[in-house]
């Protein structure tokens, strides 16, 4: 590495030539992507596209089979503990310890991330406050609503002040109000701490509104990437991200019947958006 390269900040996440197999099934078929520091990066695609596998390889949950992944310059194979320290991870499934209070849940993760004892109490309180949970903090987490649980999970991920926050389908299963609440908090966190956010979602409207850049993933490959505006402009004046997605995947990979189905879904969604 040259002296100049050492001074340049390394990207928050760099994925190169990653392939991954589950038995006979090729889940990732050569994925390359870079997430720059400070951006909100959306990994989009339908269920089964390979989004979650990509994330699970980056956060060391799955062993990397082929290719390279670095988080802020740390290789996931050689320095998994360093990578784990840099990431805050919120999995798709709502997952908290229901038998502990909100504060105990966050404090638990503060300890697991070695937040120094002198700062722990304050950082736990701050994380809860940012997530709008200060009043509910001492209630058992089992009594929380879905949206509150998701915000509690964000507080757990935030307490370590990670370099990159990784959110896997953060709004699935939440009602629209809770969804907006979650996105609003993510935005506030990003503004307050300047952290990088990597988010997977299959809600194209959300991605369009909130991501600086997106990558469209389908059947284990990245089909297109860029800012939402760039991608839409390349298709046409009134194009949506869903149109972009269909253009990049539908032609070659989806049969006619399904194509109609997708269009149908897109139309229904647009209608629903107008009505709602």
């Amino acid at each position: 590495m040259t002296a100049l390269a050492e001074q340049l900040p390394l990207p928050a996440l760099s994925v190169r030539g990653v392939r991954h197999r589950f038995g006979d099934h090729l889940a990732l078929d050569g994925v390359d992507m870079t997430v720059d520091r400070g951006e909100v990066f959306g990994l989009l695609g339908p269920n089964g596209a390979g989004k979650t596998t990509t994330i699970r390889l980056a956060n060391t949950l799955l062993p990397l089979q082929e290719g390279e992944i670095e988080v802020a310059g740390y290789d996931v194979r050689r320095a998994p503990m360093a990578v784990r320290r840099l990431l805050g991870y919120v999995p798709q499934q709502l997952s908290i310890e229901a038998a502990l209070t909100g504060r105990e849940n966050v404090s638990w993760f503060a300890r697991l991330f070695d937040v120094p004892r002198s700062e722990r109490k304050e950082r736990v309180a701050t994380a809860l406050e940012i997530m709008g949970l200060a009043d509910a903090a001492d209630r058992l987490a089992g009594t929380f609503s879905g949206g509150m649980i998701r915000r509690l999970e964000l507080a757990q991920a935030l307490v370590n002040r990670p370099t990159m926050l990784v959110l896997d389908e953060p709004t699935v299963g939440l009602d629209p109000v809770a969804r907006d609440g979650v996105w609003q908090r993510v935005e506030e966190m990003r503004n307050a701490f300047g952290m990088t956010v990597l988010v997977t979602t299959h809600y194209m409207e959300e991605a369009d509104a909130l991501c600086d850049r997106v990558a469209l993933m389908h059947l284990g490959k990245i089909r297109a990437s860029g800012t939402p505006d760039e991608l839409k402009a390349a298709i046409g004046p009134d194009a949506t991200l869903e149109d972009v997605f269909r253009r990049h995947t539908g032609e070659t990979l989806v049969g006619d019947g399904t194509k109609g189905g997708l269009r149908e879904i897109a139309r229904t969604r647009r209608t629903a958006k107008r009505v709602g």
Partner: protein
Amino acid sequence: MRSLELAGPQSVLADVALVAPPSIWRRFPSRVGTFCLVELQKLSHDRTELFTRAVQPVLWLVVFGETFNRLHAIPTGGKSYLDFLAPGIIAQSGLFVAIFYGIQIIWERDAGVLTKLLVTPTPRSALILGKSFAAGIRAVAQVIVVLVVSLLLGVSLTDNPFRILGAFAIVVLGAAFFSCLSMTIAGIVLKRDRLMGISQMITMPLFFASNALYPVSVMPAWLRVLSKVNPLSYEVDALRGLLTRSPSHIWLDFLVLLIAVVIGVVTASSLVGRLAR
């Protein structure tokens, strides 16, 4: 562009600060402490389990113990049968608490909590060691209840606080081993229903193939062999020595349990990753 503004050298320094970890020698005890603390917090929110789980050992002591106390059918070396039985039942209640931990880890997997634990900078072995000591803490809490019941029944227990603390240490080691056994099986079978079946299948044989209810001397030869390789026998032997001052091999028992825990932690931590795939 926001991304360029923030991507200064400062953020690189922040990475370095984040990544600089406490040494492994501090991290292991810290993780074990964390899991024990969480266990105590859970216990403090719901204490009913302490009492529901006390029912079975009380029945053993009151019904089985009192009956055999009168029968004098089991040679106990001059002690009353209740005095002989109490350490066995204490070990048993620790075993029953610990064997639940494999089910708990599968439950945590199903609830998504395990995934989050596995992406914290916690080595797998520290996670398992933490959980096994948490099992130990919960077992001690359970054992205190059984000890009180034993006292009320008139079991002549030691009043030496060091011996009682020693007994707690033995209970922690025993529970640590059996929770590792349970988590190891969890890592192999991966499904909650299957594990529940297996847990039920193994707990009673572990109990009967030990010296908890009767001395090794009255066992048939084949059962003696099983009792010899059963860590529960060593736990009971140590508890008898510490709590009721029976002749025992406390240091051998301690060593066997310690080795069992090391093997248990190594095996369970090599399998726990399977649960998250």
